[in-house]
């Protein structure tokens, strides 16, 4: 059992299990997997399984065999990931996915915060480039720029020590008292609670600004100045 286990790596994914195999003989690995499953039927029962078979070249009958063996044991094989184009093609032929989407940490970060107290904040010490989205159930502070195509959605305030040229949504859960401040506020769009404002033109000489919802319920930005 110990020896067979070393051939396989089992990892939990968001929506099932990922089993990683290596380049050892397919027959051995298949047997190892089945042994493993039979050893812990309760753990595997009803699982959604993705199989990473490294560079194994697998043909239809081999994939069908393992799929059927797994399904007999109540396991649903939904994806086969492989470096071999032949195997990928086979998997596609059988209607199996060949990619499991791992959200890249860079692209979508959803931070969960146990304590949603007012003082919870997230500090980001870099420039957010296009395609980056930060969601946070608290305040967000960025030491760097927010480039066009980047987005910040925060339930609290957003403070940027840098240039804002992307999209920022403060008070995303409806907090109309939320503010957005930046050294240079030239965003594609700003939102506070349910108010949106587009295009604050980039200025030649940027000045720190603070955006908030005024008494008339409109989003408004004003310069900050040291008196």
């Amino acid at each position: 059992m110990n020896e067979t286990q070393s051939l396989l790596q089992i990892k939990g994914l968001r929506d099932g299990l990922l089993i990683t195999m290596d380049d050892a003989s397919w027959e051995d690995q298949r047997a190892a997997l089945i042994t493993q499953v039979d050893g812990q039927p309760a753990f595997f029962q009803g699982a959604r399984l993705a199989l990473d078979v490294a560079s194994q070249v697998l043909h239809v009958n081999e994939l069908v065999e393992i799929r059927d063996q797994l399904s007999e044991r109540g396991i649903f094989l939904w994806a086969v990931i492989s470096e071999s184009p032949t195997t990928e093609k086979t998997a596609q032929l059988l209607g199996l996915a060949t990619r499991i989407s791992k959200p890249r940490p860079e692209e979508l970060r959803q931070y969960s915060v146990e304590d949603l107290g007012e003082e919870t904040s997230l500090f980001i010490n870099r420039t957010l480039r296009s395609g980056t989205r930060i969601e946070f159930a608290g305040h967000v502070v960025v030491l760097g720029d927010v480039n066009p195509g980047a987005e910040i959605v925060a339930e609290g305030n957003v403070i940027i020590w840098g240039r804002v040229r992307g999209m920022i949504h403060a008070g995303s859960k409806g907090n109309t008292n939320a503010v957005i401040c930046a050294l240079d506020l030239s965003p594609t769009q700003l939102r506070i609670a349910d108010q949106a404002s587009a295009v604050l033109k980039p200025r030649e000489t940027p000045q720190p600004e603070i955006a908030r919802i005024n008494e008339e319920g409109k989003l408004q930005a004003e310069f900050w100045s040291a008196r």
Partner: protein
Amino acid sequence: MPAQVITITSGKGGVGKTTAVANIAVALASGKSKVVCIDGDIGLRNLDVILGLENRIVYDIVDVIEGRCRLKQAMIRDKKLPDLYLIPAAQTRDKSAVSASDMTRLVRDLRADYDFVLIDSPAGIERGFRNAIAAADRVLVITNPEVSAVRDADRVIGILESEEKGPASLILNRLNPALVKSKDMLSPEDVLDLLAIELIGIVPEDENVIIASNRGAPVAYDMKNRAGQAFRNIAKRLKGENVPFLDLDAQGSLWERIQRLAGRK
């Protein structure tokens, strides 16, 4: 010294990746470096056309990967430069025919015998792009001074950062100094300000680039052409030389030009 593997990519299509690869390759190979270009745009191959080698293709990269030929058989030697080779893309297949590890393996076999391996990346940030950057030691991001192209470049730089590919360098292509002056085009400063990476070259807009590409003789061969000069400078910087950037306002008045010719300015 083992080869430097350089991938040229952009995110957005049509900003001049393939043209840049061809020109930098020609410039490097003219300077006595042994260069292999790999066309990573499987299914939409172009690099062979720009290098004027289309009619010599027998085997392509997918043939090598799938074992139908040896690596050497798929390497096409350039017509003029004996130290320049091309490994063409397959036109009849698609990106899924190649994996990142195939690419890494292929490049590993080339490293010992050449000075530079240049990889032309397809547009986009999908599989083809990932294959093209998998083996790279260094990535050059190319962009035009256009808002959309710069935004895509920013995205690509973000991905490269998250893949820990080391700092990318920037080629700013098709810059029109007159439009920059009249504030109708992003200036190099605007672009660098946003992207915040090292600049390795600015290529001025020049219709001769397209004409040369259509003829299959990249503009880097033309010693008088300024765009060609810009590409040759990039090649020198890749070799570690310190070359000053071109003075792009050089199309000044006649008097200024005469002064420059006389070496007085």
